[in-house]
């Protein structure tokens, strides 16, 4: 062991020394981009927004700082002493205190790295199987009548989805199959819920969702069983898991990925009740228009027919016919009248002749009419009256009953 010279002049100031240490440490590439696992202690949130804490494990401690800009990204994390974390950052030396420290830019709960690795492994596996292929995607109906929902019965996701559906398509029917959406029991329950909807209810579309949470909270939606059930469903499935930035394997397997449960309900109702009302109104107007037009067409057709009818109207002919008829009546009446007066003249002559032919007028000149008293026959021949027969003799005034004394035949 060599003797340390006591009276040498100091070769470095503290600052120079510290700078040298700093250069040495910060020059180590392995320490410039490193993940460190440990437990948080001495956690402080400064008013400036920077986070100060110590990472430690049973063997050592590491002073750490997270600047305000990076700290914004871990606002949701329950950072507190005792939390196991994985921190990403680089080594640095704080010269005023001579402290080396980890400048943290990414902080995540411990185990998340393993989860991410598992996520990537499973994603690659299922992708290779073709489960995420665009050709497998089923068509999402624009106007579903029956909508299946798989989510927690008590979560905000269900309330959000029902609100959207109520507002956009209250004509729809919803069938909920409730399932836990996180924890060990979630994956088999989600699979069963999907299968029951798919096989019993057969809705037009299924909404599969849950609200936001940590990657562990959403992990059921990366479970291989659930991903396979989604890919295997005959009913189209819209997934809405977590927030905008969360991607789960279910999102890759579903037929449509929505950023949130609310968005899933919106994507399921491409046609809303307002669209339906608009289309209905348009149809009503078309219906009225078409009948109006038809009636107008019919009316104008009728009008032109009436014009044609008037043109060919038989009225004039009718008038002629009627005149002709009057004429005929008049002429026939006249003819009848002439006929009657002619007949009257004939009748008068005949009456006169009849009178002159009356046997009574002969009697008045002294002739008598002799008839048989028995048979009343006019006696013109003596053979008609035998001797002793009785005869009746009619005179101009009065008559006689006589008896034939003798009958003489006609002299030849």
């Amino acid at each position, binding site marked *: 062991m060599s003797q340390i010279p006591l009276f040498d002049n100091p070769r470095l100031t503290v600052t120079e020394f510290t700078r040298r240490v700093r250069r040495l440490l910060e020059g180590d590439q392995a320490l410039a981009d490193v993940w460190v696992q440990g437990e948080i202690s001495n956690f402080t949130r400064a008013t400036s927004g920077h986070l100060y804490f110590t990472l430690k494990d049973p063997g050592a401690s590491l002073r750490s700082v997270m600047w305000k800009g990076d700290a914004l990204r871990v606002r949701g994390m329950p950072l507190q002493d005792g939390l196991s974390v994985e921190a990403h950052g680089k080594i640095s030396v704080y010269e005023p205190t001579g402290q080396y420290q980890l400048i943290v830019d990414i902080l995540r709960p411990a185990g998340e790295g393993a989860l991410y690795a598992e996520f990537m492994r499973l994603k690659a596996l299922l992708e290779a199987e073709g489960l995420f292929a665009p050709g497998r995607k089923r068509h999402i109906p624009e*106007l579903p*009548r029956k909508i299946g929902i798989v989510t927690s*019965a*008590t979560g905000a996701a*269900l*309330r959000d989805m*029902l609100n959207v*559906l*109520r507002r956009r*398509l*209250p*004509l*729809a*029917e*919803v*069938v*909920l*199959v*409730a399932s836990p959406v996180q924890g060990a029991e979630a994956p088999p329950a989600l699979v069963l819920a999907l299968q*029951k*909807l798919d096989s*019993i*209810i057969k809705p037009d579309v299924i909404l599969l969702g849950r609200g936001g949470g940590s990657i562990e909270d959403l992990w059921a939606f990366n479970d291989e069983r659930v991903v396979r059930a989604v890919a295997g469903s005959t009913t189209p499935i819209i997934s809405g898991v977590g927030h905008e930035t969360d991607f789960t394997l279910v999102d890759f397997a579903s037929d449509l990925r929505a950023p949130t449960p609310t968005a899933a309900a919106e994507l399921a109702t491409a046609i809303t*009740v307002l669209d*339906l*009302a608009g*289309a*209905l109104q348009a*149809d*009503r107007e*078309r*219906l009225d228009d*078409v*009948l109006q037009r*038809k*009636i107008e067409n*019919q009316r104008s057709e009728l009008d032109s027919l009436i014009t044609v009818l008037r043109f060919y109207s038989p009225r004039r002919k009718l008038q002629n016919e009627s005149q002709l008829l009057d004429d005929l009546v008049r002429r026939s009446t006249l003819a009848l009248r002439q006929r009657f007066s002619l007949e009257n003249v004939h009748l008068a002559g005949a009456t006169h002749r009849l009178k002159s032919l009356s046997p009574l007028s002969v009697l008045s000149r002294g002739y008598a009419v002799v008839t048989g008293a028995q048979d009343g026959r006019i006696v013109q021949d003596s053979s008609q009256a035998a001797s002793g027969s009785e005869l009746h003799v009619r005179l101009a005034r009065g008559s006689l009953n006589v008896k034939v004394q003798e009958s003489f035949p006609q002299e030849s």
Partner: protein
Amino acid sequence: MSPSSKKQEELSYEAAFAELESIVAALEGESRALDESIKLYERGQALAAQCAAMLEKAELKVQQLSGDTLTNFEGQA
């Protein structure tokens, strides 16, 4: 209630609207007797009124399937 109006009551919105569409198309397309057109028009009017009423009155029906039984779901308003 006549049998035909009862049948109308049971039509779904989609079915009623589809029939309305086909009636409008039929009226616009073919030429047919006026009284037949008026009958179609009246049927169309009835369907349109029915559709409007359904839209007006529609209320999201939410059921829950637990086990093998469907029940009305009243978990959240």
